[in-house]
């Protein structure tokens, strides 16, 4: 396997993503966690880009960074008082969780490396974006409709719950 600069980009992105992810769970300041989270999202978007899923990369930035991360930061700010200062961030089961997570990682890696994935050595020859667009109105029209309802329901619900009394 020849190491190309794609590999290097991949390694950089993967390292960045995982580092940011670690930052998310290790940071003692909630707001910093959120910043790390944004970094992780961006790293994942980069990985999508590397996987030739441009649309998804952009969607990742738009939805995760533009919407979800903003919401999270918003929530952190709206519940002020919990963010400033270095308070204990982990619960009593942090230690065991770390062990569980580490074991899980080992197990998953083992499984993922063991499985003989039916990889197809083929370049992407078509532009996926029109395909995605078309999929949404043909094969996936039912889930598309469902998620439309789901989103409206979720937003109405969120507003209803979060509205000031």
């Amino acid at each position, binding site marked *: 396997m020849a190491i190309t600069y794609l590999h290097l980009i991949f390694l950089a992105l993967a390292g960045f993503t995982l580092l940011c992810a670690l930052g998310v769970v290790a940071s003692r300041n909630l707001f910093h966690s959120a910043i790390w989270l944004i970094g992780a999202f961006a790293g994942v978007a980069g990985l999508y880009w590397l996987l030739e899923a441009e649309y998804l990369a952009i969607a990742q930035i738009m939805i995760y960074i533009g919407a979800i991360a903003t919401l999270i930061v918003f929530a952190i700010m709206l519940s002020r008082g919990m963010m400033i200062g270095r308070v204990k961030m982990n619960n009593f089961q942090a230690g065991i969780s770390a062990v569980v997570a580490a074991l899980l990682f080992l197990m998953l890696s083992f499984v993922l490396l063991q499985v003989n994935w039916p990889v197809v050595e083929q370049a992407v020859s078509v532009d996926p974006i029109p395909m995605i667009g078309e999929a949404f109105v043909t094969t996936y029209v039912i889930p598309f409709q469902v998620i439309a309802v789901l989103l409206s329901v979720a937003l109405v*619900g969120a507003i209803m719950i979060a509205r000031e009394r």
Partner: protein
Amino acid sequence: MTASTLQAILPAIILVISAMAVVAVDLITHRRARDVVLAGVAVVGLLLAAVAAFTLVGTTPQSVLDMLVVDGFSTFLMVTVLIGMVLVVIYSIDYIKLVGEHRSEYYAFLLAVALAITIAVSANDLLMVYLAMEFVSITSYVLVGFLRGDKRSNEAAIKYFLYGAVASAVMLYGISMLFGVTGTTNLNAVAQALAGETLAGGMRWLAFSSVVLLIVGFGFKTSLVPFHQWAPDTYEGAPTPITGFLSTASKAAGFALMVRVFIVALPSFAVDWLTVLAGVSMITMTLGNLVALRQTNIKRLLAYSSIAQAGYILMGLVCIPQAQFGLRPLQDFAFNGINGILIYLFAYVFTNLGAFAVVIAIENQTGKVDVKDYAGLIYRSPWLASLLLIFLLSLTGIPPTLGFWGKYFVFGAAVQVQFFALLIVALINSAIAAGYYLNIVRYMFLMPAEDEERIKIAPSLGIVLGVTFVAVLGLGILPGQLIQWASESAQFLVQF
């Protein structure tokens, strides 16, 4: 989209329209009539959807763009759940009146969750499975946290949410693995792709881990141990009508998804999931029952009982005859596990909703939900006490109630496959369960009343109690048609 496809999703369409109608009607109704009108619209919508679902009973399985499959299995559960939701709506009327705000949204949410469940029971694609499960969950989070000013409701919702979100994410990871190894998300196609696989080496590991990951998600939704921790808190804190919903319709949706995924998509991995689920089933019923013994809050008690019941229901899935993957005619399998699940769920929906109707009746008037507040209920309201007794007997599985038939069929499935360990655990659990159900009975009938105030039954609750009573006892005495319907419905899945 042909006409029959449209017919297949007609229940869902009706529900969407009626959900919108509820919100719209809210704007044009007079304040005083509002509660009844809103609930009325919701009930009509649900009933129409139920009728639409009922017209599908017995038709040939209808695939909607490969995403949904409307077959006997799904129509059975659809009809069951929709009728259950009608009851939920009706018994919510007085409860929600006390809350005072966002009532139209409440009913719209109930309709939305009913929609989600109709989708869940017919989901035939991993994407739809995940989507439907999240739809049910997200709507439920909102409903659980509906009492915004109530700390308990808030807490219940947040716990439910956090557990649910983690569980569904974990499940999703399993789904992604299945997608990776098969390259498809359609359940039948997944099964086909896996059929040729020799479960050697890596595949065995993959099978095991994806099964475990999937069970986490389904286990959450159906409150199986050890993914049940949310259930007691959530059941206790949620608005009581919603607790009733969570323990019945929501659980039915979870089981529907689980059964379909495991049986349709993963027959090749059956060895793995049967083993894991058998263990889960035993732990679930045992732990649920043991902890239920110690509960003092009736909602919490019913929560643990509901966990234990999930363990029994799971027996049906664990005990599908292995040979059934080799397509044998139904006659050989009058007890094929799946019809046990269906009958059990049917029984459970009506029984538990009835029980919750009683709880609501008492809560609405006295605001109390502790078991000790049920002391001497027989003096305060003989009807409520007697009805609750019948529902509790049904939960215990005493004939001639509907609950007995549910147990009968899942136990039968276990006997059929000669799963003795499971049977012994189930047997012991039946006795433990009787302990806490009878404890309520003891308070109701054998203890003196602390408060002599008589408890009135609101007309809406009267309707619910009447329907559930007739279902539990009437169908308990003459269960033939139900058994037939369930067995025919199960056939669709068994022969897949």
